[in-house]
Every structure is written in structure tokens, then in C-alpha cells.
């Protein structure tokens, strides 16, 4: 029995950070303490507010609607799935604020930073609380704009360039979303997040495609990931934490809502519906696989710490997309894939935010991002090293840490799907999954070795004072990683399985999940295989220096696909349009090409000598001389053969004008005949 609680709390939770953002901007710039305290209190308050909702969402959903808003209404509804996202978001935001206290002491314009950070929080909460796709779209667009300001916070050339790529790609995504919801509204007559697959008819494929473009851009699925690496390396460290930990989840949330709720048959569904669902899920899984392998390979080849993590983020989101894909194409039996994906969302939020924070702390203290200029930080920053190791073991999927649990669930779901359908492609996908796991370990080793091991470069050989608030955040991340790893079933049984029960998965399928034994021989064996494979890849490759290879710039997707496309549009299409427009303008131009007045004025300018201004009589002199010269010119001009060309004569009219006059005359003649 689903209970609906009608309350304005979701609206307050969204408005509170937004209004805080505006308020913080109104306080004077030099009162940073106000901003810090305000940021702390409000982020804590949002976190508590969201957690306070837990008992309600476990019983049902929280709903509120402003029906008169923009003619379509603004609706919020929070169910358990939204709640899981919202709680992760507010938790990480609180930790980001802690990190920002340390980071922003060194950067410029903290007032704008805090202000837009909170505005972004409001927009993100709005997206995950949205009760229909219209509200979703509104907050999605606001999120794009406000996060843009965060990305370009440094305001140097690189960040502005990276920022505009980020902005334009996200605007394209937003327009795709707008198109999708327009089509959806046209077909189904509403924008609620309920199953509507039967009503969509032939439009289902375009709508799904448009949704996927939008969310693919937001989370950086291949080939829409091109904005991510430059934007991650240009943004300030706390913002990279927000982008990797939180904003990519917004896109995932969209995919989840669309593919697992919207694109489901309302009752039963016909065979063709289920075939469509299977195909879309299967393709989504493969996009996820390509993204996880591609991201991991690219991460291996980077030498910038943030870029490694950016590609790692792309790769890990590929895991989630693959899991969702499995959940979709398994139809009613996709509960395991879904819980695995949801679990990985939670884990990824924690460990990726953690890793970015740790790299951010290293950057904060050393101002270095390049692996070749870093090293030996293990001795200088023991706390960062310990927490980094714990978090990295989490992302690598080592038993006892959080990544292991979700990866095992995802892997299990894939094996189950293979058993169920016996399609060879799924088996291949499962192998790729293992390889991606191994590659993940490889780039983590590379990152760890580059930053923390080896000799300390001379320039960096000094004592570092760890910022207190950032240290607290680091410890919290490490505890979360360990906690989930040690008690894997707690989160699964309390939150994720009730979350899965909200969808249309069969009860039989969900009953299997509680008490899933993570620490039996089979999963551990898989983890061991992954580690061995990783060592097998890493050792020879690093000995031969393969990881230092930089791919030629033409090989990137940007150079291969997007730039030629853009050049085609800009150089060809727009130039053609412009040339035509100019030709059209000339068509109506004065048929007498040269203008007497033009001649006059240009000669007057020649006469004026700046030196004349020195003398008192300059004005008089110029006017007299100009007049003389003008008269002279006039006489010359009327006597010259050019005057003949300028007079209103038929032979002086341009061909275009004659043609125009002719057409007009014909029309008038025909009309005259008719009227009579």
C-alpha cells in the first residue's frame, strides 16, 4: 500500500539552497566568515532535512505540486529511489563544503563560488525530486547554467574554453530533452513519470533516442564524453568532486527514470513492447561496456591526475549504465541488475568524490597536477595516503571495500542474464567487464605510484600542514568506504531492495536478493582473477612504458567527429546563408552604385589636417577650403564620364532591378486582367 504524503517539504528543500545562494551573494565580499557559517549550516540543514524524510519515503511517497506554475505545473514527488539519490547528494555536498573551506582560502572570489555552489545544489535536488518531466527539465537547465559558472571559476583561457564546450554540449542535451518531452506530451497528454510505453506508438524510438542523447551528454557516455576531461581539469577541486560525485548521477537518475519507469508497459504489454525493451536495454548495456573499457584505457594513458580520475569517472559510470542495461533487458527479472546499478551509484558517489578530494588536497598543498612532477607524497602526507589507499581499494573492487559489493552484484546479474538468454554477446560483455576491472586497477596503480611513491621532487620537499576541515572530509570518505565493505548487506536490505520493489520487477526475483552472500568463494575468486589479470597487464606494460604513450591528437573523437561536423556547418552552411543574404541585400540596393555624397565626404576628410587644430582659425580654414574643394570636385564630377553612369537612366539600372520591375509589371498586368 503506497501512502502519499502531501507536504511542501520538497519545495522547501529545493528553495532553501537556492535562496541561500542568492542571499550569500548579497553579503559583502570581505565577510567570508558569514559565507562559511552560512554554507555549513545550510548544507547540514539540507542533509538533516533529507534524512528526516526517510520514515515517510519508506512508507510511500511525498508529493507536492504548484499547479499554476508556467501553465503546466511544478510537481515534486519523492520516493525511495529519489531519496537515495538525494541523501547521497546532500551527504557529499556537506563534505564538499568542508573541503571548500580549505580550498577557497587560496582561490579568488569565494563569494561567487559559495553562492553558485548552493544554487547548483538546489537545482540538483530539484532534478531528483521532480515529479514530472517538465519540472525535471526546468531544473536540468538551471543546473546546466549554474554549474557552468562553477566550472569556469578560474576564468583563465583554458577554463573558459573547457567551460564553453561544457555549456554548449549541455545546452544541446537540454534541447534534446525538450524535444523528447514535447513529443512525449504530444503522444501521451501528460508528463508524469509513469509507464507509458503503449501510448507512444511509433514515436518511442525517437523519444528514447533523444532522452539518451541528453543523459549521455550529462554523464559523459561515449561518444558524448568529450566535454568531461577538459572541464574536470579546468574546474576548481571541490567542483570536480561535485561534478564526478553528484552531477553525473543526475544523468544516471534520468536514465533510470526513463528506461525503467517511463518506457515500461502500463499493463502487461505486448510482445513487440518487450522486444523493444529488450533491444533498448541490450544497446544500453553495450554503450555502458564501451564506455567502461574506453574510459579505463584513456585513463591509463593520461599523465594529469585529474584527467585520470575524469576518465575513471566516465568508465565507472559505464558500469552503472551497463547494470541498468541488464536490468532493462531482463524485463521483469532485472531486479539484480537494478540493485547492482543502484549500489554502484551509491559506492561510486562516495569513492569518486573521495578520490577527487584527495587529489584536490594534494593539489591544494603542492599546486601540481602532473604525475611526472609529483612523487613521494606518502612520506609528506600520511593521512591522504592512507585514505587514498582505502578509497582506491574500494574502486578497484577488492573484497572488504565498498566497490567489491556492487561490482559483484553487477557481475552476477550479467552471468544470470547469460544463463537466462544464452546470447553469446552477453558472455563477451561479461569478459569485458572483467577486463575493465583489471584496467581500473592498472590506472589506480599508476596514479598511486606517480603521486605517493618514489622520490620527492626537490621543489616539493617541504613540510605540509594538512587543512583540518579537509582532513575530516577525507576520514569520513574512508570510513564510508570501509563501512559499506564490511557490512555489505545493511544498505542492500534496508534501502536498495525496497527501492527495487517500487518498480515492476517480479516479487520472486526480489526475494532472492536479501542475505546475498558476498564473501563466499565464487565472488572472492572473481576478485582474485581481476587482480591477477591487472598485475599481468600492468607489469609488462609499465616496464615497456606503454602507459606514457600519448595518442595523436587526430585520433580523438573530438577531432574525428565533432570538429569536421562543426566545420561543415560553420564553413559551408553558414557561409552560404550569409553570402545569399548579402546578395539579397544587394538586389534591393540603389541601382546607381556610386553616390555623389560619398565622394564629397571622403574628400572632406582628406582635407582636414590634424595640425590645423592648433591654429585658432582651423574651423574657418577647413570649412572654406572644403567648400572650395567641394565646388571644384562638383564641377569635375559633372564633367566626367562617371556622371553618365550615375544618372537615372535605363541602361544604368542593374539587371536585378530590371528583372524585379518586369516581374512586378507582369503581376500587375495579370491582376488588371482579372479585376476587369
Amino acid at each position: 500500500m503506497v501512502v502519499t504524503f502531501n507536504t511542501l517539504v520538497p519545495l522547501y528543500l529545493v528553495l532553501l539552497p537556492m535562496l541561500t545562494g542568492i542571499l550569500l551573494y548579497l553579503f559583502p565580499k570581505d565577510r567570508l566568515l558569514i559565507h562559511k557559517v552560512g554554507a555549513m549550516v545550510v548544507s547540514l540543514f539540507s542533509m538533516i532535512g533529507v534524512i528526516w524524510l526517510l520514515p515517510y519515503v519508506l512508507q510511500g511517497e511525498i508529493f507536492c505540486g504548484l499547479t499554476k506554475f508556467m501553465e503546466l505545473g511544478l510537481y515534486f514527488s519523492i520516493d525511495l529511489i529519489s531519496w537515495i539519490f538525494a541523501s547521497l547528494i546532500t551527504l557529499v555536498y556537506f563534505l564538499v563544503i568542508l573541503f571548500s573551506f580549505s580550498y577557497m582560502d587560496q582561490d579568488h572570489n569565494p563569494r561567487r563560488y559559495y553562492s553558485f555552489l548552493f544554487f547548483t545544489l538546489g537545482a540538483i535536488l530539484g532534478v531528483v525530486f521532480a515529479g514530472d518531466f517538465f519540472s525535471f527539465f526546468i531544473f536540468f537547465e538551471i543546473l546546466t547554467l549554474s554549474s557552468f559558472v562553477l566550472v569556469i571559476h578560474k576564468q583563465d583561457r583554458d577554463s573558459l574554453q573547457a567551460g564553453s564546450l561544457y555549456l554548449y554540449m549541455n545546452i544541446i542535451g537540454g534541447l534534446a530533452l525538450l524535444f523528447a518531452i514535447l513529443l512525449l506530451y504530444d503522444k501521451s497528454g501528460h508528463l508524469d513519470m509513469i509507464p507509458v510505453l503503449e501510448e507512444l506508438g511509433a514515436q518511442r524510438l525517437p523519444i528514447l533516442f533523444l532522452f539518451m542523447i541528453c543523459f549521455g551528454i550529462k554523464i559523459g557516455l561515449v561518444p558524448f564524453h568529450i566535454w568531461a576531461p577538459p572541464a574536470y581539469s579546468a574546474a576548481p577541486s571541490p567542483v570536480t568532486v561535485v561534478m564526478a560525485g553528484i552531477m553525473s548521477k543526475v544523468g544516471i537518475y534520468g536514465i533510470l527514470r526513463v528506461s525503467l519507469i517511463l518506457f515500461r508497459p502500463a499493463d502487461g504489454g505486448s510482445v513487440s513492447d518487450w522486444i523493444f525493451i529488450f533491444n533498448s536495454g541490450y544497446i544500453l548495456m553495450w554503450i555502458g561496456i564501451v564506455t567502461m573499457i574506453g574510459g579505463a584505457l584513456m585513463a591509463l594513458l593520461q599523465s594529469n591526475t585529474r584527467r585520470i580520475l575524469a576518465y575513471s569517472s566516465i568508465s565507472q559510470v559505464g558500469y552503472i549504465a551497463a547494470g541498468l542495461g541488464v536490468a532493462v533487458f531482463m524485463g521483469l527479472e532485472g531486479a539484480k541488475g537494478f540493485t547492482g546499478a543502484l549500489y554502484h551509484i551509491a559506492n561510486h558517489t562516495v569513492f569518486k568524490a573521495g578520490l577527487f578530494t584527495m587529489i584536490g588536497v594534494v593539489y591544494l598543498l603542492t599546486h601540481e597536477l602532473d604525475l611526472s612532477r609529483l612523487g613521494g607524497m606518502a612520506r609528506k602526507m600520511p593521512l591522504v595516503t592512507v585514505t587514498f589507499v582505502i578509497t582506491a581499494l574500494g574502486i578497484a573492487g577488492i573484497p572488504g571495500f565498498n566497490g567489491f559489493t556492487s561490482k559483484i552484484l553487477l557481475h552476477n546479474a550479467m552471468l544470470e542474464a547469460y544463463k537466462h538468454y544464452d546470447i553469446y554477446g552477453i558472455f563477451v560483455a561479461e569478459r569485458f567487464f572483467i577486463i575493465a576491472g583489471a584496467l581500473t586497477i592498472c590506472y589506480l596503480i599508476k596514479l598511486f605510484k606517480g603521486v605517493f611513491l618514489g622520490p620527492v621532487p626537490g621543489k616539493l620537499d617541504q613540510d605540509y600542514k594538512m587543512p583540518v576541515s579537509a582532513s575530516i572530509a577525507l576520514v569520513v570518505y574512508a570510513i564510508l568506504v570501509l563501512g559499506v565493505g564490511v557490512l555489505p548487506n545493511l544498505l542492500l536490505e534496508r534501502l536498495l531492495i525496497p527501492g527495487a520493489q517500487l518498480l515492476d520487477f517480479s516479487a520472486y526475483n526480489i526475494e532472492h536478493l536479501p542475505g546475498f552472500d558476498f564473501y563466499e568463494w565464487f565472488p572472492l575468486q572473481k576478485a582474485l582473477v581481476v587482480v591477477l589479470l591487472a598485475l599481468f597487464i600492468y607489469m609488462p606494460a609499465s616496464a615497456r612504458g606503454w602507459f606514457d604513450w600519448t595518442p595523436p591528437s587526430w585520433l580523438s573523437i573530438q577531432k574525428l567527429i565533432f570538429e569536421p561536423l562543426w566545420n561543415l556547418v560553420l564553413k559551408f552552411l553558414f557561409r552560404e546563408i550569409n553570402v545569399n543574404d548579402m546578395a539579397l541585400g544587394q538586389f534591393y540596393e540603389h541601382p546607381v552604385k556610386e553616390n555623389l555624397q560619398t565622394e564629397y565626404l571622403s574628400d572632406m576628410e582628406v582635407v582636414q589636417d590634424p595640425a590645423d587644430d592648433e591654429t585658432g582659425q582651423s574651423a574657418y580654414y577647413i570649412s572654406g577650403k572644403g567648400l572650395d574643394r567641394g565646388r571644384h570636385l562638383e564641377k569635375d564630377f559633372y564633367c566626367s564620364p562617371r556622371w553618365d553612369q550615375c544618372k537615372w537612366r535605363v541602361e544604368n539600372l542593374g539587371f536585378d532591378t530590371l528583372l524585379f520591375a518586369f516581374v512586378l509589371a507582369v503581376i500587375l498586368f495579370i491582376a488588371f486582367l482579372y479585376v476587369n
Partner: protein
Amino acid sequence: MDEATAITVILVVIFFPIIMTPILMSVSDRSEKLRDILAVVTSAITFLLVLTLYPFVVRGGIVQHTFFEILPNLEISIRLDVLSFSLTAIASFIWLLSTIYSIDYMAKEHGGSRYYPVLMFTLGSCLGIFLAGDFFTLFVFFELMSLISYILVVHEETEEALKAGYKYLVMTIIGGLALFFGIIITFELGGTVSFGVGSIIEEGTLIAFLAFMCFLIGFGMKAGMFPLHVWLPDAHPVAPSPASALLSGVMLKTGAYGLFRVIFNAFSIEVMQTNNWDIVLGVLAVITILLGSAVALTQNDLKRRLAYSSVGMMGYVLLGLSVLNENAIIGAVFHIFCHAIMKSCLFLAAGAIIWKTGKRTISELGSIGREMPFTMACFSIAALAMIGIPPLSGFLSKWTLGLGALDANATFYVIVLLISSLLNALYYLPIIVPAFFEMVGDEEQGHALKLSVQDVPPKMLAPMIILAIFTVIFGLSPINVPFDLSQMTSDFLLKGGWF
């Protein structure tokens, strides 16, 4: 308010500004301050009088009153219905703000004693167009407005302005002749040109098509429709900025208004659709939208870019007119409101920048937001609304137009709208983003750069801020008067548009 009072109010609304013209002229020799005040008072009174008509119109009241006949059945008459009222209200509102803005703006310029009388005369004739009761009266006011506004276009008297003005004049005369020809044909075929009789021409013969094409040339020329838009990007930028705001924000709409009247009063939706004339309009609208947006992208002069953007935006209205169903008409009328507000705001802000710094080219506008934060904030809000970012008003009109196109199964139109939105983003954001975020000088210097606010005086700032606030309110507010008016207009027009 009964009908007789309404007629009086309408007459006053049209002729009060025209009567004030000579008074302003004589006053301006004696005191410039008095002249400014009188001009603002005139437009304010006009606006308030228009507002008094609101209850009458909302109740469904319609005025159709004939004063006298020039020839049998060729009348001089006035008309007020919800469509006229919508345009009259927005026109007089923008005019008031623009006049207020002019006070400080024109203090720096020459020829104020010519500018204000002409401005008021144009106001009267523009409202005359919207309140005319038949095509002939409309034509008279249309020509008056077009010719008088020539003086506004060439106000700067530079070579460029004179050239643009010449182009404008030639095109206006061509358009006027075509319009007159269309009216003659309509009169010949239907025996009347009044708006009060429903559709005048009910059969789509060739000669009727000729009339339609003549109307299309006449009004389309004014609205900046595709092959006839060439005067617009020359004439709008050279005028003084408050006048550009009016040219782009209000006077373009007279063309769109004329097309509304042509489609619903001279012909009817059935005539349009059975003879596929709506496709003619649709093709022209699509080309107008794409061309306006694409060419705007390559302009480097700020006001020229805005002028081309106007071309594209009027294409939206034409698109709504070619689709001709409920949502599309709501979208078209609401877009007239939105575009009037947004584009005037943009032109006023551009004018403020030019007035303060003398910078016209977009590449020079880096970090202008530090000097003039309020102006640029207004500019940004209006530009974001143009792109169609929710919850600003521009989004609502795009959404409604898109729904209308989908109702008519014209997915292609939606794609055009979205491409145009993307192009809008591509030409507006490169103005906004550097204005706020570009560093001047090297990095260290840039970080140390203090916010040095040197914004324009409040009389110029206030109109922009009001317009920017309305851009937000007309998107967000639960009581959305323009949208309700658009809905009423749509109902009214779909029921025939004359009783």
C-alpha cells in the same frame, strides 16, 4: 465601461499623442526639460488609458464603430477586440519605458526637439494601426507610421544611417503599394474591407491568392519576412537605441498584426488550409527563422546581431500563423508579447553600453559586466529568455509553439524551433559569458581587479530592469496576464475573429 466610453477612449488613445506632437515641438524651443516631461506624460497617459480598456475587453466586449464612408462601403472605422487590445497594451507599455529611457540617452545626442515629437506621432499612428476597424484605415495609419519612423531611422544623420534610411524608405513604399493593391482586390472581390464582417473572401481563386500575396509582401516586409527583410538589419542598428527598441520591439509587430487580420478577417482558416496558402507562409517562416539566426551568428556589431535575431524571432510568429491551430496561435500571440519585452530590453541594454562606453563590436565587450553589472544582468536575463531557458517567458512561447506544431503533426517545425534555439544560444552566450567572466590583462591583475561599477543613470536603468523583471514574471507568475490574453485571442480568432 460601455461601448460609447470605449470609443471615446480609443479615439483619445490614437489622437492624443498626435495632438501632442505640435505642442511638443513648440515647447522644445523653450525648455528641454519641459519637453522631456511632456513626452513621458503623454506616453504614460496613453498607456494608462489603454489599461482602462482591459476590463471591457476581458468581459468579451468588442467595439466596431464607423465614423464616415469615403466611398460607399469604404469606411474610416475603429475596432477593439482582444487581439487589438493585446498589441495596443504591449506597444504603449514599451513606448512608455522607451520614452523614459530616451530622456538621458538623448541628452547626449543632437536633435532632441525633432526626436520627441516624431516619437509621439509614431506612437499615435502605431496605436492607430492596432485599433483600426478596417483595412483601409489600417493602411492609412500604416503608411503614416512607416513614413514618420523614417525620421527615427535616420536620426543620427550619418552616411550609414542615410543609406539605411533610403533602403527603408524604398522598401516601405514597395510594401505600401503592394498592400494598397491587396486592399483594392479585397474590396473588389468582397465589397468591403471591414473587420466586422467575418471572412471577406471565401474562395481561393487565383485573384484571391494575388491579394494574399500582396498582403504578404506588404505586411511581411514590415515584419521582416525572408526575402523582404533586408532593410531591417540596416535600419534598426543605425537608429538611436530607444528608437531601435521600438522599431524592433513594437513596429515589427504591426506587420505580424496585419497578417493576423489578413488570415482571419480577409480570408479564413479554411481558405488558408484548403488552398495550401499556409504552406507558403510556413516555408517562408522556416527560412526566416533559420536565416535570421544563422546570419546573426556571424555579425560582429552588437545591434546588428540583435536586429538579425529579430528577423529570426518574427519567423516564430509567422510559423505560429502558418500552423493555425489553438496552441500555435497562443504561441504566436504570446511570442509577440515576449519578443516585444525581450528585444526592447536587449536593445535598451545595448544602447546603454554604447552610450556609456562607445563600444559597438562584440569582441570589445569582454568584462563589460564588471563596469555595468546591472545593464548586463538585464541583458543576460533577456538573452537567456531568447534562448528559451525555463522558467523565463521565452521558453513558454517556444513550448506552446512546439506543441502547436506537434498538434498539426509537423515535427519538422519543432526541429526548426530547436535548431534556432541552439543558434540563439550560440550567438547570445558569447556576448554574456565574456562580459562577466573574461579576465582583463594577465591573470594576477585580473584576480585583483575590483568591481568598479559605473552603470548608466537610473532613468536609463529603470526601464531595462522593469523589462527584465517582466521577462521573469511572464514565465513564472501563476497569474500570467499576457498568456491569458493570448488564450482569449486564440479562442476568439478560432471562432471566426469578428463577432
